[in-house]
């Protein structure tokens, strides 16, 4: 096709790629910019942390009676909606938990949407958990437990992570309450937290 220089200030008949060397065309940018969707993709070196969410539990919760199934710590729960199903979620939690009876055991674990994650392999009839504890004192002591788990939820739906506890042989398990506390300044009320970070896959 002949190239026509119009009096309107435009040129017709010039083919794509007919510009001088080093001119930029849509094809040159096609791998990074989607002209129809106006989006940029294939960017290397970007950050991997896409979002972070946290819940801090400042109140207390007590679990009474030697129950044998895990129960939720109500306010130690956080939800996150992954940006992509290939994302990973780094879950970090720190919980102050203890039983109120010397030498009695309790256990805790992490749940994702009701499914336990990061727990021990099956071993007979023993409780599968992320960790466990036992009050070694019974006079205002607390136990700190923390865990870090990298999860792959494979979803873009809202996902809730919760800390759960069980006490097979401990009469009472408390979160954010010391064993046999007294009401004075030698005893304290602390906090527990759960933090989730979405990491690009």
């Amino acid at each position, binding site marked *: 096709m002949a190239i026509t*220089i119009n*009096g*309107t*200030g*435009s*040129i017709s008949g*010039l*083919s*794509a790629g007919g*510009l001088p060397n080093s*001119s*930029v*065309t*849509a*094809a*040159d940018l096609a791998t990074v910019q989607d*002209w129809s969707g*106006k*989006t*940029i*993709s294939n*960017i290397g070196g*970007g*950050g*991997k*942390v*896409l979002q*972070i969410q*946290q819940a*801090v539990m*400042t*109140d*207390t919760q007590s679990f009474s009676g030697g129950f044998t199934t895990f129960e939720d710590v109500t306010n130690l729960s956080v939800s996150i909606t992954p*940006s992509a199903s290939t994302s990973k979620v780094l879950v*970090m939690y*720190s919980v*102050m938990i203890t039983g109120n009876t010397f030498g009695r055991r309790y256990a805790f674990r992490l749940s994702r949407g009701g499914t336990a994650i990061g727990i021990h392999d099956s071993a007979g009839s023993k409780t599968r958990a992320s960790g466990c504890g036992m009050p070694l*004192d019974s*006079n*205002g*002591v*607390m*136990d*700190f437990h*923390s865990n870090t788990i990298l999860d792959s939820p494979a979803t873009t739906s809202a996902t809730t992570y919760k800390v759960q506890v069980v006490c097979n042989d401990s009469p009472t398990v408390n979160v*954010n309450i*010391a064993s046999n*506390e007294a*009401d*004075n*300044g*030698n*005893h*304290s*009320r*602390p*906090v527990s*937290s759960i*933090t989730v970070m979405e990491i*690009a896959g």
Partner: protein
Amino acid sequence: MAIRFDGDGSIFGMSEGGLPDASVTIDDLATTLDLSSKTLTLPSGIGSKILQVKNAVKQGDQSFTASSWTTITDTQVSITPTSATSTFLVMGSYVLGAGGAWRSMGRISRNESSFVGGYQGDAAGSKDRTQMGGVPYTVYNGSQRPCKMYLIDSPATTSTLTYEMQIYCNDGGTIYVNKSGQEADNGNHTRSCSFLTVFEISG
């Protein structure tokens, strides 16, 4: 306007949009590239959220007898926010021993005066409101007990901040950091480390 070809290799008089199809114009880039302010807007999910990270590790030991907040030395992290909208993920961990049946109170503080994130246990009678508390209580012949906390802070400033861990003991006893309260000098006993790590995360 007529199009004019100059002898220096340039063209004058060409109107906007006068190039062939598939040529790139400012409008094509407008949703992602703002040429006037020279900014590039990346799609959601792209671009670093962690702007900086700093860490302090305490390898020595320290004893405490104070009944008011006292800084665990060498756990201070100073950081200057890139933006006032940034949030900070603060991760602290310390190890305690006691010389008797003492209980400690602990917190992560900002500028030695506040609870990070404003978080402390709800009020309950005369009990102290803390972030970490109730350990180690007894000595148990060389034992130490860890305390760890992850908290998010939103300081809303671009001024330099200092985060640190602080503890105190109301029982009148001595609390030790990074050592037990009843140690012997042999391999059955341990000297530990405490640390504080701060991430600045874009808002």
